[in-house]
């Protein structure tokens, strides 16, 4: 039968594009022949602003990149500064950083799975998920007074020590979470409709995934067991016992399952962190004149000065954020402002592969495959 090609525009205001993403679809009947993505509807110029502000002033902007999981963003930027200037961080601060980042990973995966299920037409999971998320946000609020944009991890440590009563409340949350993840698994994992929507949809092979620069759960869903926490252990991850979760299938269901597995691993990590957290000062008092790189001005003698001038140089740092590999490239010319800040955002790089994955599928499958990519538009467009 002769059919005409149909051009469909989806977005930028659409309930399942997770923000302001736009798809231009060329359809043959119901089959997607070509999927073109139009980005930039949330391009806020963070990188240019990074050049216009001082090092400390850039920190709040990192919160607003991937706003569902802001702690890893904070941490990655701070880690870049610390590597550039050779700042030492006390052990307890590293423990607190890992604690909040793993807690944030759980929150991220809850939101990710919840919105995936909502896009597929099942509203229960997002209701359940936000119930637990609210409890985690209360913990964040105890720490720094903010629910989403924290600005908590600072160069040289964290802003404040854990407040009184935080650990018992955290333990309560962990215990509840264990029960809840089991609930999620019971609700979703073997649901007939869910399986039909996810199995074999949006398949990407391991080789293609690496070539496209996929990272994080999206890569590990294709059977590549690469996790930066294992490959280049940063902070205290080399002391912790956990495994990188991966699934060989490479389809949407595998990517979803990796996220569920990662939540279990994060719970496991959090337990260890709580058990082994040392009692010590949080903010580093060591004068960072011990920098391995040369050129630290002698005027910098206190902990983290208001007028901070790192040595000239370049640094590229990356961590395993919940969505994938998050990287910060900072070029410094020795002044108070970064010369160039480049953000390697996981969502942006993961999206590269989407149009290849959905060719030959139908629009509802596009939603399913796209949902398992787990992107945030603030992170894509920056």
């Amino acid at each position, binding site marked *: 039968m002769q059919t005409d090609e149909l051009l469909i525009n989806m977005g930028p*205001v659409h*309930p399942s594009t997770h923000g302001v993403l736009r798809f231009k679809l060329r359809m043959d009947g119901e089959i997607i022949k070509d999927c073109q993505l139009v980005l930039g509807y949330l391009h*806020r110029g963070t990188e240019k602003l990074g050049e216009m502000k001082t090092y400390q002033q850039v920190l709040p902007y990192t919160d607003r990149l991937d*706003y569902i999981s802001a702690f890893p963003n904070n941490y990655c930027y701070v880690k870049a500064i610390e590597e550039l200037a050779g700042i030492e961080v006390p052990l307890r601060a590293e423990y607190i950083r890992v604690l909040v980042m793993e807690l944030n990973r759980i929150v991220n995966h809850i939101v990710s799975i919840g919105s995936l299920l909502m896009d597929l037409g099942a509203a229960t999971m997002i209701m359940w998920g936000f119930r637990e998320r609210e409890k985690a946000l209360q913990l964040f609020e105890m720490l720094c007074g903010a*629910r*989403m*944009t924290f600005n908590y991890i600072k160069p040289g440590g964290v802003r404040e020590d854990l407040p009184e009563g935080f650990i018992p409340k955290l333990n309560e949350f962990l215990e509840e979470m264990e029960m809840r993840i089991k609930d999620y698994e019971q609700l979703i994992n073997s649901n007939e409709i869910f399986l039909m929507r996810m199995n074999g949809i949006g398949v990407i092979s391991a080789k293609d995934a690496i070539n496209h620069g996929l990272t994080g759960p999206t890569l590990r869903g294709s059977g590549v067991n690469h996790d930066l926490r294992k490959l280049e252990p940063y902070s205290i991850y080399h002391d912790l016992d956990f495994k990188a979760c991966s699934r060989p299938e490479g389809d949407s269901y595998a990517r979803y399952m990796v996220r569920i597995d990662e939540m279990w691993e994060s719970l496991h990590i959090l337990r260890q962190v709580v058990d082994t957290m040392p009692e010590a000062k949080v903010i580093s008092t060591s004068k960072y004149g011990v920098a391995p790189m040369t050129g630290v001005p002698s005027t910098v003698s206190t902990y983290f000065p208001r007028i901070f001038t790192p040595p000239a140089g370049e640094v590229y740092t990356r961590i395993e954020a919940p969505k994938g590999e998050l990287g910060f490239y900072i070029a410094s010319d020795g002044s108070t402002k970064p010369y160039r800040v480049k953000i390697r955002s996981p969502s942006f790089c993961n999206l590269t592969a989407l149009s290849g994955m959905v060719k030959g599928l139908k629009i509802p499958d596009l939603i399913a495959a796209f949902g398992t990519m787990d992107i945030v538009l*603030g992170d894509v467009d920056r």
Partner: protein
Amino acid sequence: MEKGGFRVDSVTIDTTKIKPVRKTPETAIEKLEDTGLISTLLAAREREGSILFSTIDQVFNWARLSSLWPVTSGLACCAIEMMGVAMAHHDIARFGMEIFRASPRQADLMFVAGTVTKRMAPRVKQLYEMMPDPKWVISVGSCANTGGPYHDSYSVLKGVDNIIPVDVYIPGCPPRPEAWLYGIIQLREKIKNEGYGATWGLDK
């Protein structure tokens, strides 16, 4: 009588000694005022509405503010808090607002939740224009209010009120769900005091 460690003595109130605050109208003017007609006229003149339709206005306003349907348009960070407000914990279903419409044609409230970039601005404006009257706009968060932290950026609009009229501004980055609820209550107050006789041209 012991209550919570404090001793409370019982008090007897002599009702005969309490004088009524309300004065009985004596002069003609006072009698007229007592009917409430003058205040109604003044209120009607204030909002350029009609005296005839003021009760109908009240009914319409009540109906409108009790089922505001927002359009689903999240722009940035604030949209996640919007999801938080809509979910079970904060629950805007108490205002009859839980039905987020995917189509602006069926919505009467728009939350501008997040940074309005230059590229998104014409879309936001189009979305607003597609909504049927009467319609309201709540600008949420520093970015939508003024540009916020991105005020210096080359690609961000400095306040959504540059392109569409805004009824309520909610500050915060992002605003807490409680702030959202407060903003919604403010909008309801605003709608409560609107007069539709004037907008329909019935007073002429």
